[in-house]
């Protein structure tokens, strides 16, 4: 439907202060375009960068000014080229003026689509808004904003500003930030502009909706307070799960040279008599049967149509009750039930220009409740009751492991938290489109903060967690063998328990039930949890051969990763493994194993035109093992510190 086609201009701030979050901006934009390739392949996207060294836009030619604003991609239908270009955004060298960028973006949309296009036209700005806005020759900045806002309104554009403020510390000029916020706020007031402030990479990744759902009413009609008084209402979905995409079944029967093969699989049904399977019954000879105990009661659709419950359409008030009568966990899911009883709770708007509304939540019927009885905590034996000190340790944990500290934005706010599984799927899809055998990519550091506790928050609360460990002791029940089911529970894909920060020592000190119970003898390094496998093999004491086997295995793994990398997609993983190998080699006093391998790897990369891997290593500050780390090393500390691998290699050769 033409109406749903979206014209989107991305305005991306690439000025130096943004560099640290650009990897997340790249991932966000790639995901956005990747999903458009599937669900909105007629959408058009243009990309404008600002804070760039270069200047390239129509306005600078026509009227001058607008420096350091670069039209990176003209607005056009989404394609692979656009997607690839977003994977590596050029880093800018100048402070970015977002107001200039907005003007360029608005100008692009207006010039290209005028009034001829009535569908969605959107501008999305991602900036930290920390660079000063240049003064205008004509009028104040406010006048300028008013003029732009009027254009935005008259051409029916929508604007979404995402302001990233992760490092609000030190050198940030508060005055500039305040002035910029004021300008952004003015846009929100004067036009249909939404401004979101995000403080972390996770929120940034969740701030921009990557799929377009045109909101449609699911009901328009009356809310009947009584037969005498009705209120006209419109009902929308507020929360609806974005499901994991449904993939089609693939058939490989078509000959490989058949270019027009659809590879689709059709499903065919046959209905057979249970007693006599040779008898096939045509579909229209079937009749629906419903179970009632052991009996199956046949009912034709016509009979059912007459007999079934037919409620009157509409929303009717039953009455009011105190909000405390409805506990939160009774909220169900709205489904296709014919009739539901639910609660309306007020949603008071925080904005003057957005009206108040109600949220509707479905409540269970009597049939939906299972009234299981559970023992009262007070009836448990004394041993199970926490003592005063234990209670205190728990209190402190609940208070201190705080995701919504006062004065700071809430972390993991559902509105700003992306779905890690879907991100993983679309990333894998993209990898596979270039490289059909690409392995499932691990969650990146940003997304890992959704599935695992934030290392920074844990570090802050080290003492709190230590106290918890001291107060509570867990023991495996000696009478019970741990069920095999749990032993086999799989490890997550490519992610482990904080092995990047290598808090291994900590994890070993605590009397970990997990580690005790989950020691499965590892004999090989697998693809899922290579680091853990490596560590497990290294620590095996049943034969001295395991160490060398582990190192050999690991080297092969790293080598494979680097060799099979496409545009560096495996590099982070390879580095993770290298870090683990390095640590293992230091522990086992085998520095040469690591140093030689690293040199060999770099040499190989240089020969195979993979030298960007060496650069990547450099950026990760991965060095050879020095003498001070392992006495057997023949690399001195000086050589290690600043010498790059390339020079290092020369030295060796």
């Amino acid at each position, binding site marked *: 439907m033409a109406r749903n086609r979206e014209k989107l201009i991305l305005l991306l701030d690439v000025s130096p202060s943004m560099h640290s979050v650009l990897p997340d901006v790249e991932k966000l934009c790639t995901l956005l375009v990747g999903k458009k390739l599937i669900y909105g392949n007629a959408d058009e996207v243009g990309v404008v960068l600002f804070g760039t060294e270069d200047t390239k836009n129509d306005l600078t030619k026509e009227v001058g000014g607008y420096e350091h604003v670069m039209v990176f991609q003209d607005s056009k239908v989404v394609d692979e080229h656009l997607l690839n270009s977003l994977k590596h955004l050029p880093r800018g060298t100048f402070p970015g003026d977002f107001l200039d960028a907005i003007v360029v973006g608005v100008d692009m949309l207006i010039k290209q689509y005028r009034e001829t296009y009535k569908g969605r036209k959107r501008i999305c700005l991602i900036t930290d808004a920390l660079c000063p806005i240049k003064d205008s020759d004509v009028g104040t900045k406010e006048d300028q904003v008013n003029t732009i806002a009027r254009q935005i309104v008259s051409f029916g554009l929508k604007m979404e500003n995402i302001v990233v403020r992760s490092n609000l510390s030190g050198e940030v000029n508060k005055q500039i930030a305040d002035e910029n916020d004021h300008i952004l706020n003015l846009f929100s007031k004067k036009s249909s502009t939404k401004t979101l402030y995000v403080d972390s990479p996770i929120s940034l990744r969740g701030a921009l909706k990557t799929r377009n759902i045109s909101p449609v009413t699911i009901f328009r009609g009356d809310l009947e*307070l009584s*037969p005498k008084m009705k209120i006209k209402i419109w009902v*929308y979905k*507020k929360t609806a*799960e*974005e499901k*994991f995409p*449904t*993939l089609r079944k693939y*058939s490989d029967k078509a000959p490989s040279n058949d270019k027009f093969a*659809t*590879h689709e699989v059709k499903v*065919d*049904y*046959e*209905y*057979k008599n*249970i007693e006599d399977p040779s008898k096939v019954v045509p*579909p*229209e000879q*079937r009749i*629906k*049967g419903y179970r*009632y105990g*052991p009996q*199956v*009661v046949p009912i*034709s659709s016509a009979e059912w149509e007459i007999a079934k*419950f037919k409620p009157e359409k509409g929303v009717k008030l039953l009455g*009011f009750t105190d909000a405390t009568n409805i506990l939160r*966990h009774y909220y169900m899911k709205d489904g296709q*039930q014919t009739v539901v009883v639910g609660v309306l709770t007020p949603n008071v708007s925080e904005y*003057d220009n*957005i009206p108040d509304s109600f949220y509707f939540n479905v409540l269970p*019927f009597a049939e939906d409740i*299972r*009234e299981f*009885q*559970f023992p009262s905590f007070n*009836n448990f034996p004394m041993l199970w009751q*926490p003592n005063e000190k234990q209670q205190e340790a728990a209190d402190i944990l609940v208070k201190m492991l705080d*995701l919504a500290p006062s004065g700071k934005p809430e972390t*993991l706010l*559902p*509105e700003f938290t992306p779905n890690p*599984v879907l991100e*993983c799927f679309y990333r894998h*899809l993209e990898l596979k*489109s270039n490289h059909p055998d690409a392995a*499932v990519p691990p969650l990146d550091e940003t997304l890992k903060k959704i599935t695992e506790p934030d290392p920074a928050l844990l570090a802050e609360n080290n003492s709190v*967690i230590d106290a918890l460990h001291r107060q*509570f002791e*867990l*023991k495996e*029940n000696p009478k019970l063998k741990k069920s095999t089911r749990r032993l086999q*529970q799989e490890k997550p894909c490519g992610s482990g328990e*904080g092995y990047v920060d290598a808090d291994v020592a900590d*994890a070993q000190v605590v009397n970990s039930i*997990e580690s005790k119970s989950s020691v499965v003898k590892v004999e090989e390094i697998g693809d*899922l949890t290579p680091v853990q496998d490596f560590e497990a093999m290294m620590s095996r004491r049943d034969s001295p051969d395991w160490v060398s086997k582990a190192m050999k295995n690991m080297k092969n793994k790293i080598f494979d990763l680097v060799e099979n990398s496409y545009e560096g997609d495996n590099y982070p993983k390879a580095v993770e493994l290298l870090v683990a190998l390095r640590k293992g080699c230091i522990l086992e006093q085998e520095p040469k194993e690591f140093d030689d391998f690293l040199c060999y790897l770099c040499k190989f990369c240089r020969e195979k035109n993979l030298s960007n891997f060496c650069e990547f290593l450099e950026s990760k500050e991965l060095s050879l093992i020095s003498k001070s780390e392992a006495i057997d090393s023949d690399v001195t500390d000086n050589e290690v510190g600043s010498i790059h691998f390339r020079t290092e290699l020369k030295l060796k050769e």
Partner: protein
Amino acid sequence: MELDPDDVFRDEDEDSDNEFYQERESTKEYAVYLVDASPKMFSTTCPAEDQKNETHFHIAVSCIAQLLKTQIINRSYDEVAICFFNTREKKNLQDLSGVFVFNVAERDYLDRPTARFIKEFDRIEESFEKEIGSQYGIVSGSRDNSLYNALWVAQGLLRKGSAKTADKRILLFTNEDDPFGSVRAAAKTDMTRTTLQRAKDAQDLGISIELLPLSQPDEEFNVSLFYADLIGLGGDELALCTPSAGQKLEDMKDQLRKRMFTKRIVRRISFIIANGLSIELNTYALIRPTVPGAITWLDSVTNRPLKTERSFICADTGALVQNPAIRFQPYKGKSIKFSVNELSEIKRVSTGHLRLLGFKPLSCLKDYHNLRPSTFVFPSDKEVIGSTCIFIALHRSMLRLKRFAVAFYGNPSHPQLVALIAQDEIVSAGGQVEPPGMHMIYLPYSDDIRPVEELHTDTNVVPRATDDQVKMAMALMKRIDLKDFSVCQFANPALQRHYAVLQALALEEDELPEITDETVPDEEGMARPGVAKAIEEFKLSVYGDDYCETSEKIVTEASRKRKVAAVNAAKHIGNYNWEDLADNGKLKNLKVTDLKLYLMAHGLSVTGNKEVLMDRILNHMGK
């Protein structure tokens, strides 16, 4: 597993949803209800609401009747036997006196409940005296021991099935706390010993025996006299099962009903609080929508069930494909292939555990932060000793500090961010209303939340209610206050209707039963002068004097389009001879779009799959 095309066409994700909702119970339950029918059960009464007294026998029987009705809807695979003891007549396989197994035709003693069984049991009290009769079976001087016999009969019935795959229970209803009280000392010791041994034998076979004692108004049922030994209760547990004396009938019924359910654990999970500190939790589905049971297709000629066979056919070559394990997603003009294993690896972003991320104040949990019904979690020390202690400590802290926990639940099929809300125990006279524990609320992600409010953004300030209007609204709210509102007080009218129709058809009754829809507003109440006045005043303050009910149909764009489509469709349906197609069962050869033409031309709904569309057309033709 039964295949239903409608089911198969659902996407895989919904399958995991189904799993979530149905949590296919791995075990069957076999239950024998042992009901004491001694004269004491008939002579002791409880005050009921309407001043009429109800006997203990009636309470027990009506609780069972109610349970059977729930069971046939929810857990119809479970099997049940009802067995009276202390009866005049006897009917049981061992031919033991004082025990009568109730049953109906076409049903084993221990079997799934049938429509007829439920119906006859509903009338048991009318025929009880004539058919079965009450007579205390433990008499001084005789060796008869009806309780012993009852346990033996029950154990005999439960011989069916393996204890590994089935949950076997005996539920004993009685108001006699000292069954051998009237027997002389020596014989009493002997009888007690043999009866306890009988019970122990049953328990050794994996049968659990539960006592559902009925207290008398003035005298508490003393479990420790005899039954504590029989059911093997320790000191702490005793307190849990002793009912208080003088309960009201409704409370007693409530308590019995709740205790008759067996708790079913959905999953055992580890809750990782910090590295190296993970406790054991059990999850329970306390709230799940009950839906009409699945459809079984029958041959309309013979009414015999049909087996659906599915085959996969390659669209390119027409060859049969065996269990295709590769999926694909069109992307950038290519078909990107995924193996089923890769897809599940993608979903495995975390371990199958529940991992604590931190805490937030309860006010952060918004009303729309809710994707599906909640799951209840309760600690267990079965495998990890110390779990309960940490859980209780956190539970108390969270309640006191009014905070909830945010955690990541790495369920392999559906990993999700969840909120854990601590719920304090709430107890009323009828027993536990809310169990202590935590409720897991499934949180949405950013892309699951729609900013619909913003659709109605106005560049101007939107109107707000005046103080006066708010005052009127508050007056109205006070007037229409739902007294004693409890969340799940309404029966689902659609479901009730569904099963009422099934029951009538199953018993071949001619008349369809009427069910009352409890969900409709109380019109009488709304018409009360006080309420009517409050509504009138509120209406006046909001709409003013000139409010009139306008129900004129505004022609929306959508309805205009529909009209045009209908006219177009009418032109095209002439292409087919519909009557002919329908008679020869050839409608299925048409495309869905063609079927829709017919429906549109006749102003019928065009929703549903091909099956539904065809049915609708046939209905319309009166075939």
